[in-house]
């Protein structure tokens, strides 16, 4: 299996920032979303939850975020059990979840606004991240005037601005067109390189998962379990376009597809 190894690899493993311990989730009405899931997400890395639609990966992400309670098991973030949302985690939403009545600056600064940070201070921070995600000059624009890709950049800047240790991203590119998505993925890699944060990423796109992830958790159909963990061995320090031509990238995509095929009718 060239280019990909299973868990337990040679690279010095950082300590886990997010630990999912035997988590199960049964929704009211008896739908079993997760069945005894345990995963470690290493600090400073990007871990992706990958699986077919409706496999419970978003459910797991929301349990880590503290937005949903687990039926059984627990989640530890930075060693502390999750009981609800907390300042060490920030969420990027699939449908952006921007406030349409507020401009880009206020949307990005909103997390800090809720914490009572003074206006000039929080706007300076927001300003910095608006530039970091490539939206400089759009501070006073309203969400309805922005494209889907730009709206998600606002969502990302908002999550970065609160300086959380863990960024939880729920299919952030699924509502964005293909060209924008590629550009966005490249920018994301650059941002990850600059921020020493732990990223947890949910997607149903194999290519996207292999392109951005240090660790990929393959999840099975509902009730979801971890079917395997893959760590793509692809150098990310070079040209972002080069990754897509790297044989290791292509092999990993193929390996995952072979593994996931069984869940697709």
């Amino acid at each position: 299996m060239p280019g990909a190894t299973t868990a337990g690899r040679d690279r010095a493993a950082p300590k886990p920032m997010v630990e999912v311990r035997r988590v199960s989730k049964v929704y009211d009405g008896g739908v079993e979303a997760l069945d005894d899931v345990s995963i470690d997400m290493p600090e400073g890395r990007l871990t992706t939850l990958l699986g077919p639609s409706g496999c419970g990966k978003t459910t797991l992400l929301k349990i880590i975020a503290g937005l949903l309670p687990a039926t059984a098991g627990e989640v530890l973030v930075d060693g502390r059990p999750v009981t609800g949302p907390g300042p060490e985690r920030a969420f990027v939403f699939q449908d952006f979840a921007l406030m349409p009545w507020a401009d880009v600056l206020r949307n990005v600064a909103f997390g800090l606004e809720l914490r009572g940070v003074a206006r000039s201070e929080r706007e300076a921070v927001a300003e910095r991240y608006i530039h970091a995600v490539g939206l400089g000059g759009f501070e006073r624009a309203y969400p309805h005037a922005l494209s889907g890709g730009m709206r998600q950049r606002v969502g990302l800047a908002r999550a970065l601005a609160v300086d959380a240790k863990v960024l939880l991203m729920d299919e952030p590119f699924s509502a964005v067109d293909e060209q924008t998505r590629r550009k966005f993925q490249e920018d994301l890699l650059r941002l990850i390189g600059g921020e020493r944060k732990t990223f947890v990423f949910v997607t149903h796109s194999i290519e996207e998962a292999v392109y951005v992830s240090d660790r990929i958790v393959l999840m099975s159909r509902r009730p979801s379990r971890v079917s395997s963990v893959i760590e793509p061995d692809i150098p990310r320090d070079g040209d972002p376009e080069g990754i897509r031509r790297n044989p290791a990238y292509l092999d990993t995509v193929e390996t995952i597809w072979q593994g996931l095929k069984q869940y697709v009718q």
Partner: protein
Amino acid sequence: MIASLLIWAGLWELWGRSGASFVIPPLSRIFLRMAEIVPTATFGEALSITARAFLLGNLIAIAVGVPLGVLMGRSIFADRVFLPWVNMFLSAPLTALVPVIMVIFGLGQTTIVMTVVLFAIWIIVLDARAGVRNISPSLVEMARSFGATTAQAFARIYLWAALPEILSGIRLGMIRAVKGVIIGQLLVSIVGFGRLFELYSSRFLMEHFWALLFVLFAFAFVLNEGLAWLERRVDYYAAARH
């Protein structure tokens, strides 16, 4: 539209001039009378006392109705407690309750203010509730995940997200409040326009009576159009939501 109005006005004028009924004086004389009574101090006083009752009643209805509606939209418990009552009062013949208010608050301005509240509040509650229930769930999750307290979520998310529906409720509430203030004054009949109506009709001053009625109709119409204009201006919020 204009042509239709003119034809009806012409018919009214002819009917009035024929002298068939003293209840219907010629339209032209009503308009002359209008020009005569509008500048009088009696009219001005009635107008200001009515406007005060109307504004105060609306303010109370908004200040109580909007938070109550937002609460009902977010809390299943509050919804179960209040919704049956709100629905009942929304369709109930509220005029029948005005004598009860009169017994409680006496014959005066307070009763009229409370009548305005009684007429306006229910639709405000119901629309604010509907607006909050329409908020996209991810916006609610966003507020939670960034650590919003309940008070912050209400003041900075729910209220704003529901603003188009809230404004539409306030507009409908104000139209009902016009009925409330006039019905209240007619039943109390010693303050404001109610006193004037009472005065004119008891002395069979039909020109005065109609003139006053036309003025009130015009007020209600202008008020409604003004509010509808305001509502259209914030409509893009609604369009920008999903």
